[in-house]
């Protein structure tokens, strides 16, 4: 009980910090509204589980706000989702509503293919800044105006660790004020080369891995937030990557080839089978962790950078977007408004997956509660929002991130050389975009 109220308090404090506008509001953060004229809509998703939960929300919208509307939910495999979206776009018609991811959004926004939701939200009295810039920054136009996607969810990243292994090594569980140096000590102490056990895996890919460490040095990871240049060669980026490479060279972190990939899924498999003591990954792994881990585990925010004193996490939000030439824009905007409203996000909060994008503290608490009675510090993910950092990345050149990781952690390239190579690609792409 006490824990809950503390959680709630911290949460309130945090929301107050992050979104001052909301503090005194008692009304719903985001209201829903009845539709003007019903019609037929198509909604594209890439996740079967989401289809169920969002399907429930859509049903509620149909009964409460828009009787006689028809919504067809179509799920496409994640691996081919973006290819299919482009195939659909080739015919001139995007689906009415579809889930969008930040690195993919720029291409559509720059080509004026998405509907600007801002005017509709303004008309409904919703200030889109309530989502915070990490969530919606990448969904605005290059000049920072407009809103081309409304958050379904938000995700921060934290460190998952195996408590049993810490006990066996005689270590105390890490706390929120641990530092990079502590982290290195933990990683060293938890590594058992002979048994094939590694202390940590935290470099990974663009969301769960090294960009978090770069953010902690105060640098905007990968690309400047205004999309102007590659930041991987900045001193902070080099510092972060050198630190991680040091851990890998010392044998505390497995190379990506041994993990199987740069994906947190594969690192999680190692973690699960007790060959990895600590790993960084987003909150989306919580359900699987609760279901599959057969040892005691917990979560802690990233260790603090010794120079800046900051523990930071990347923040990523999947959103709902709509095609710029949707046949029925009012209805589309109405359904999106409902889906991100307090009422519409309830199902999402209760489903025990990722946190709902709507920052309403009640919904966030609902999400924490959805995991039931647990000792796991889910709060760490919410704490991480406080000093979080949106990632600027373009799907078109996303492979440079993985290539960077492979070059440094598998192929023995120096950090300087690998980042120079990556920046060459990124800067060339940025230059080609402004043409």
């Amino acid at each position, binding site marked *: 009980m006490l824990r809950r109220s503390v959680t709630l308090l911290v949460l309130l404090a945090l929301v107050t910090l992050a979104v001052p506008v909301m503090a005194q509001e008692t009304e719903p953060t985001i209201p829903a509204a009845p539709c003007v004229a019903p019609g037929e809509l198509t909604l594209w998703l890439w996740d079967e589980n989401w289809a169920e939960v969002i399907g429930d929300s859509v049903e509620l919208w149909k009964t409460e706000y828009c009787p006689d509307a028809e919504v067809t939910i179509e*799920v496409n495999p994640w691996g081919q989702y973006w290819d*299919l979206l482009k195939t659909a776009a*080739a015919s001139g018609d995007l689906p009415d509503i579809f889930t969008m991811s930040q690195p993919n959004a720029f291409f559509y926004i720059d080509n004026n293919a998405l509907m600007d939701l801002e005017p509709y939200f303004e008309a409904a009295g919703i200030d889109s800044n309530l989502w915070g810039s990490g969530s919606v920054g990448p969904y605005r136009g290059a000049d920072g105006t407009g809103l081309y996607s409304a958050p379904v969810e938000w995700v921060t990243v934290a460190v998952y660790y195996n408590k049993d292994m810490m006990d066996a090594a005689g270590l105390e569980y890490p706390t929120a004020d641990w530092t990079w140096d502590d982290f290195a000590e933990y990683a060293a102490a938890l590594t058992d080369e002979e048994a094939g056990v590694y202390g940590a895996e935290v470099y990974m890919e663009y969301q769960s891995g090294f960009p978090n460490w770069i953010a902690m040095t105060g640098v905007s990871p990968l690309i400047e937030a205004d999309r102007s240049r590659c930041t991987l060669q900045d001193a902070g980026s080099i510092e972060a990557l050198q630190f991680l490479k040091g851990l890998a060279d010392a044998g505390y972190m497995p190379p990506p080839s041994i993990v199987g990939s740069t994906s947190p899924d594969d690192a999680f498999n190692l973690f699960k089978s007790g060959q990895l003591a600590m790993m960084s990954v987003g909150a989306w792994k919580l359900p*699987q962790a609760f279901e599959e881990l057969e040892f005691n585990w917990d979560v802690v925010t990233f260790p603090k950078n010794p120079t800046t004193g900051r523990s930071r996490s990347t923040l990523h939000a999947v959103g709902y977007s709509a095609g710029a030439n949707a046949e029925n824009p009012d209805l589309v905007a109405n359904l999106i408004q409902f889906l991100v409203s307090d009422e519409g996000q309830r199902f999402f909060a209760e489903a025990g997956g990722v946190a709902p994008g709507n920052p309403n503290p009640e919904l966030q608490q609902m999400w924490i509660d959805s995991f039931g009675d647990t000792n796991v510090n889910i709060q760490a993910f919410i704490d991480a929002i406080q000093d979080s950092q949106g990632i600027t990345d373009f799907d078109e050149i996303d492979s440079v991130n993985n290539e960077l990781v492979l070059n440094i952690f598998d192929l023995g390239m120096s950090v300087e050389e690998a980042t120079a190579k990556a920046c060459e690609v990124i800067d060339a792409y940025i230059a080609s975009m402004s043409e």
Partner: protein
Amino acid sequence: MIRREAQAEPSYKALSWFQVGGLIVVLGAGALIMVLPFLWMFSSACKPPAEINKLPVTWLPQEVACQTNLDDLYDQSPRFSEYMVNTAIMTVGRLVGQFITCSLAAYGFARFKFPGRNLLFAASLGLLMVPFQAIMIPEYLLMRAISWTNTFFALIVPGSFSAFAMFLLRQSFMQIPREIEEAAEIDGANPLKILWYVVLPLSGPALAAFAVITVQAAWNDFLWPLVTASQNPRVVTIGIALLQGERKTPWNIIMMGSLLATLPMIILFILLQRYFIEGISMSGLKG
């Protein structure tokens, strides 16, 4: 019915037991490599999630979880059986379609002279040389233009035409002695009758080969159904792709799904392999 005698294998020199033993060992080792991925798929389909990436590698599941994984598969993909049925319908539809169009065309190319014959034949073979990835979008636009997206028409009709099957059958038809058909022609039978009553019955093994190749291609087809009918009727390859999420890759369940999807193909081959091997032999491939 006229049936040609299958060539007996050369028995000009019997092998010694020692040689047979040696060959069996070599073949067996090779066969093991060939089937290893299957065994691995089998064993992974029955492993609990915790065992999938164990070190050292477990060849056999320590804890057999076939049933659990099967339940999980149907839990995640309740319509999996329906997808299998859709795949079966698509496969049978294409098989029947190709049987009709390709046997007619193969016969036409094998036995009739008409202007542009070589050019038309070469052009249709040229289609085999265009990678499908290059025509995905035009195909989608075409299916959309005729409102066939998400219908069985899209799954079956375009797949009912084939340059490869036509080529295969033509090679077989060309090996049938002309005299047999000429006798029927003198009796006044039209080409359709000759094809049906004379040529096809002589091509049983080639047709079996055609059947296995066509069925396996249709059964495993992924990109075409994905582009033209990703929702409904949904085929099993798409069902399997859907098991892999953005942030979760349940290998044991994916392998269980792949196993279920592959089993009918394996059974089919075991049933047809004798015909199939003779069929390729009949289609001759001699110039």
